[in-house]
């Protein structure tokens, strides 16, 4: 307990410096902005900003990127409530009851419930990270290469089991990502692989080029191929921000339940914001409310408060596997791992001891950022709504400009620009064929680490593959991964899973 307080003190000391406060604010602001703007997600934005973090120190850079991530959760729910268009996939369920509330002229109450619920969840999430990260780090130090390999298998499987779409295609995408990660110079023997004598390829494909190509350019092509959509915005009705006493009474148990659920689900590999919000909505629906409540689907405030608290708690605690084990549970965390590597920090359990300022500063900044978001969001809702009316034809040339400049400055040559152009086409065809690109990025980031651990494990066991199953920790992790696949493939669950994800756009 004393340690916890000391660590948090250290963290707040770092987070409350003027410079870091500024970057937390800037990140949260930018995150809200992209959460509100349709057609631009946190993955593309963080990828876009990666080149610019060369100019920053590691701590402010990561603080800013984290701010974008949770800021986007807030912004996404604003659009979900006001125009029934979830800015982020995790606010899909918020749209169900939130939009109905807005139509009844209660947009203010819905936004406040979402904002305050998220803030509460964010505070709890911060404490959960601070409490659970050190013991997990301890555990991680006991891991050998075999355990690490199995953990990555579990992480990758977990990430797709809970994602939408076909499981087998998602696993194929992971493998494709792992293979793309093989285009590099072999660390052990120094042999360049799959480089086709292109000198730039011997260092591997830049993951920024893949991320921007697939999530930036690919998505722009996909968006432009659809006819412009008509949006109905409830701008006039947003007045009376504050919810009534009865609203508070109804919403706070939902916030508590959502926070608990989100904190737990966020830690699981592949969990995080999306799963947490779906689960919380289901729980709220099953929980008996007061007599005379508005039914779910027609504007029940619990249907907004619960999932919003859950997705924010989940977004926070999904930092735990990334910070303690160096294993990203989703595409945004994969980019954070990439950002650490750019700044010369090897992600993994040693970050906490080798860079305590970074580690605890980042955690404390999340609380600071969440507080700023509440202050930022409730009074500024009018401005965010105005932004919604910015037409896409102004937006995408701006995205393209920033992406292209970023790609060029990455290595100060145009190779990455051409790579990204290629991956834009590839990304568009992934979209066309219904192949989720996020698992590909996870596989790509983890590929080199996975290979190294596999080869080291085999070297240690003298080529005996059974070592992965005879070492208890490693076996447990692999069995968990196998169980996940089996459970999701069961016919009854398969059906439910497909229904749950049908609501996604």
């Amino acid at each position, binding site marked *: 307990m004393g340690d916890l307080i000391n660590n948090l003190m250290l963290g707040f000391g770092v987070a409350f410096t003027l410079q870091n406060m500024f970057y937390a604010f800037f990140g949260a602001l930018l995150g809200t902005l992209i959460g509100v703007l349709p057609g631009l997600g946190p993955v593309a934005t963080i990828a876009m900003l990666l080149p*610019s973090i*060369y*100019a920053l120190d590691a701590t402010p850079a990561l603080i800013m990127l984290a701010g974008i991530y949770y800021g986007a959760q807030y912004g996404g729910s604003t659009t979900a409530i006001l125009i029934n268009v979830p800015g982020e996939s995790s606010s899909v369920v918020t749209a169900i009851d939130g939009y109905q509330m807005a139509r009844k002229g209660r947009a203010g109450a819905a936004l406040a419930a979402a904002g305050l619920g998220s803030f509460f969840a964010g505070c709890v999430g911060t404490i959960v990270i601070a409490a659970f990260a050190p013991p997990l780090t301890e555990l991680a130090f006991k891991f050998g290469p075999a355990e690490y390999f199995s953990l990555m298998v579990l992480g990758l499987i977990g990430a797709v089991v809970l994602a939408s779409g*076909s499981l*087998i*295609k998602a696993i*194929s995408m992971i*493998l*494709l990502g*792992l*293979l793309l990660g*093989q285009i590099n110079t*072999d660390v*052990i*023997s120094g*042999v360049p*692989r*799959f480089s086709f004598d292109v000198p730039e390829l011997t260092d591997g494909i830049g993951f920024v080029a893949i991320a921007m190509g697939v999530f930036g*350019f690919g998505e*722009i*092509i996909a968006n*432009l*191929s659809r*006819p412009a959509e008509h949006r109905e915005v409830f701008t006039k009705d947003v007045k009376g921000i504050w919810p009534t006493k009865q609203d508070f009474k109804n919403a706070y148990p939902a916030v508590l339940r959502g926070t608990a659920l989100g904190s737990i689900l966020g830690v699981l590999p592949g969990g995080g914001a999306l799963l947490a919000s779906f689960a919380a909505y289901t729980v709220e629906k099953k929980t008996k409310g007061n007599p005379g409540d508005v039914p779910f689907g027609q504007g029940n405030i619990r249907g907004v408060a619960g999932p919003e608290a859950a997705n924010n708690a989940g977004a926070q605690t999904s930092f735990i596997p990334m910070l303690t084990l160096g294993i990203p549970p989703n595409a945004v965390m994969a980019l954070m791992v990439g950002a650490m590597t750019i700044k010369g920090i090897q992600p993994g359990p040693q970050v906490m001891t080798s860079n305590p300022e970074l580690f605890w500063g980042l955690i404390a900044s999340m609380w600071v950022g969440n507080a700023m978001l509440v202050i930022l969001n409730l009074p500024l809702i009018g401005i965010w709504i105005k932004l919604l009316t910015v037409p*896409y*034809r*102004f937006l*995408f*040339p*701006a995205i*393209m*400009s*920033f992406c*292209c*400049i970023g*790609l*060029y*400055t990455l290595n100060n*040559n*145009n190779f990455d*620009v*051409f790579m*990204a*152009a290629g991956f*834009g*086409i590839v990304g*568009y*065809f992934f979209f*066309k*064929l*219904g*192949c989720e690109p996020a698992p590909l990025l996870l596989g790509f980031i983890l590929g080199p680490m996975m*290979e190294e651990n*596999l*080869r080291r494990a*085999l*070297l240690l066991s003298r*080529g*005996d*593959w059974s070592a992965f199953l005879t070492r208890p920790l490693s076996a447990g992790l692999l069995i968990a991964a196998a169980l996940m696949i089996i459970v999701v493939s069961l016919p009854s669950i398969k059906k439910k899973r497909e229904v749950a994800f049908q609501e996604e756009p």
Partner: protein
Amino acid sequence: MKIKSQKDFWSGLMFVAAGLGFAAGATNYSFGTSARPGPGYFPFGLGILLAVLGAMVLFKSLTVESEGGDPVGAIPWRPLILITLSVVVFGLALPRLGLIVTLPILILIASLAGDEFRLKEVIVNFIVLTVGSWLVFIKGLNLVIPLWPTFITG
């Protein structure tokens, strides 16, 4: 044989091709033994695994009925070509023509890819973006980006 899901058919084919391609490429590198895996060991295994999974997707697409055949749909050539072209032109032009000339070209080509093209708006857009990028990237972040064409700066 009738294709029952177009999307799965083509993605399966893509996975098989990519898997076999990587596996074939991996044979150029030393495979090693299980006790001493070489540089070709991991990619070869992964490639084969991907090809097998791809074959499963392919098999499913030919046997399991899907709603309406799951068509891939038409390819929107205009945005696909113009967006890609604008990025490639940016890459080619930036080192020679500098940001001042390249960014407007990028924005012009990219804007042509959209449904609505209004010259006035595009001009406003590229003035704002060029000045903004100059302020943010060159002035603010001190990144080394050529600003003016080489024939002016010599």
